[in-house]
């Protein structure tokens, strides 16, 4: 009989589980209590968090530092607009199409990007995002370089919106925001749960091994290339979904906005770096800090962006594990523990 068990759970993680459940329930009920402006803010936070979790999966766990995730935001968003405008698909269903198109296009993109390593991968993904932006700008049916809006009819007849309108007694435009918000909540919960699950499976363990030492991982039979590919495609899918949802809510799109390196990659990198790279908790803290800074200083324009850049540099130089890393080092708390620990039994002596 073994007295040892391998566990990843901690007391904090059990508390966190129940806390998270209550938080999600509260967020789900939020539209009953708060106004439209707050719902839009929460939508922004949740979608940025989704993007940050997927970038973190790529860079923090997969070691794939991409500066081109805006490619999948834009491709997802444009797929949604294409499906709605050209084929009359319901916008909500089109969100799934956005994810699928992003993942399908990620296959040829990965063929190019994976020929480059490390730092060159980063700029390579940026080039590919530029190619996507310039190509989409040639697509006249969705407005070319100037962009387009979602057709009024399509939005008006969008599924679930009339139900929300009557149930909550709100106007159509507000009902659309509430629907988008709920979808964002579902997406972010599914994202965090999915990534947490992935990291706790054997595959997640393999991923950690690849990140720590690719040669060693390969020598124990982990197919590093395949793992990175899976991570890349997963991130593309999630980022595409988020992109579709974001532009469904915005109702208007242009290539420069949908493929913006600042909005969809620089901000996201900032969120992950400041919160703590390679942890699930990090991006959650990061997005809150980011939102706070944005609310306080966004009016200062260029000064605000300079501040973000300087904070990012400072954190990377002096606290490379981010705010969560500092907190976790001091307190030992892990809310989403993925590290396996030996529990039970008394460990006596130094060697066993």
């Amino acid at each position, binding site marked *: 009989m073994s007295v040892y068990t391998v566990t990843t759970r901690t007391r904090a993680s059990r508390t966190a589980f129940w806390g998270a459940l209550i938080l999600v329930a509260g967020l789900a009920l939020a539209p009953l209590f708060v106004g439209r402006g707050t719902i839009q803010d929460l939508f922004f936070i949740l979608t940025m968090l989704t993007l940050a979790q997927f970038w973190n999966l790529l*860079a923090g766990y997969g*070691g794939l*530092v991409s*500066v081109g995730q805006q490619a999948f935001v834009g491709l997802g968003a444009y797929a949604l607009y294409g499906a709605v405008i050209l084929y009359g698909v319901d916008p909500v269903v089109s969100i799934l199409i956005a994810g699928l198109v992003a993942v399908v296009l990620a296959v040829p993109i990965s*063929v*190019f990007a994976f*020929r*480059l390593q*490390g*730092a*060159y991968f*980063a*700029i*390579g993904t*940026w*080039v*590919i995002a*530029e*190619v996507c932006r*310039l*190509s989409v*700008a*040639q697509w006249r049916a969705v407005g070319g*370089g100037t962009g387009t809006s979602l057709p009024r009819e399509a939005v008006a007849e969008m599924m679930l919106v009339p139900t929300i309108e009557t149930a909550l007694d709100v106007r159509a435009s507000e009902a659309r925001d509430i629907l988008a918000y709920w979808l964002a909540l579902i997406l972010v919960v599914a994202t965090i749960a999915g990534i947490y699950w992935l990291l706790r499976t054997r595959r997640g363990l393999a991923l950690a091994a690849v990140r720590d030492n690719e040669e060693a991982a390969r020598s124990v039979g982990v197919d590093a290339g395949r793992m990175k590919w899976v991570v890349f495609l997963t991130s593309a899918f999630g980022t595409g979904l988020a992109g579709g949802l974001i532009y469904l809510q915005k109702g208007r799109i242009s290539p420069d906005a949908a493929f913006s*390196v*600042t909005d969809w990659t*620089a901000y996201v*990198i*900032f969120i992950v*770096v400041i919160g703590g*790279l390679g942890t699930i908790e990090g991006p959650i803290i990061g997005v809150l800090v980011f939102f706070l800074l944005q609310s306080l200083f966004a009016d200062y*324009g*260029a*000064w605000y*962006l*300079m501040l*973000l*850049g*300087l904070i*990012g*540099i400072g954190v*990377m*130089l002096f606290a*490379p594990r981010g705010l969560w890393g500092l907190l976790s080092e001091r307190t030992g708390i892990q809310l989403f523990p993925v590290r396996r620990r030996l529990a039970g039994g008394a460990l006596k002596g130094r060697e066993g």
Partner: protein
Amino acid sequence: MIGLDTLVQGVLLGGLYALFAAGLSLVFGIMRLVNLAHGDLIVFGAYLILVVVSVLGVNPFLAALVAAPVMFALGWLLQKVVLNRTLGDDILPPLLVTFGLSVVIQNALLESFSADSQRISMGALETASVDLGPVTVGVLPLITFASAVLVIVGLNQLFYRTAIGRAFRATSDDQVTASLMGIRPDRVFATATAVAMLVVTIAALYLGTRANFDPSAGPARLIYAFEAVIIGGLGSLWGTLAGGIIIGVAQTVGAAINPEWQILAGHIAFLLVLLVKPRGLFPQGGGR
């Protein structure tokens, strides 16, 4: 119809891209650091030259000569104070710090000079051209290309003919053993970035005099530079010139077909080379 003229323009444009790329290539070759702020530093250099021209009222070439030592010192400090701290086995810190730097430089320029596009005036030289038999080419593009060739010759001389170049190569090979030879790697890195900033100043001069620029022009220059380096093959400066020429020709040919395709054509040429020859056209050395 794509004429000889288009091709020549493309080749000369490639000289400009090679100038963008040479500094990036130098720094990567010595310390495996990819500076995501490289393009923004070029744009910064262009503003610096612009300021010198308007304050001192001197010719842009002379202004670049004034700007060069400033840029050299800035590069040395940047490496010594910031970037040296990020070097190591992990590729994330240098990438993220230089990405942050890129955001900072862009917005600092935006705050200081507004988003209006600027140009450094060369007077009559801007429109001057010479007749080279079947084609007529601008003098300024010709000077740019000649400068690119000179820069590459100069860097090769520095690398293979001087004690500094020897220290560059030794440190690039093996930092620990280099330090046993009395070489201080962080000083070598600071010197390398400072030298790269001299090349950046030259690139900035031609960026600013050949076309309009604004604070957001950096990332695109970084991308062209990067494409030229990858096409040429890592570690080969002449390869980088060839890479720049390929991007330049692809862009002018693309633009000749449809002006909207200029940038896209350059990127596609890069992706095609990446597909066919992932290690570039003129790769150096073994399986690094």
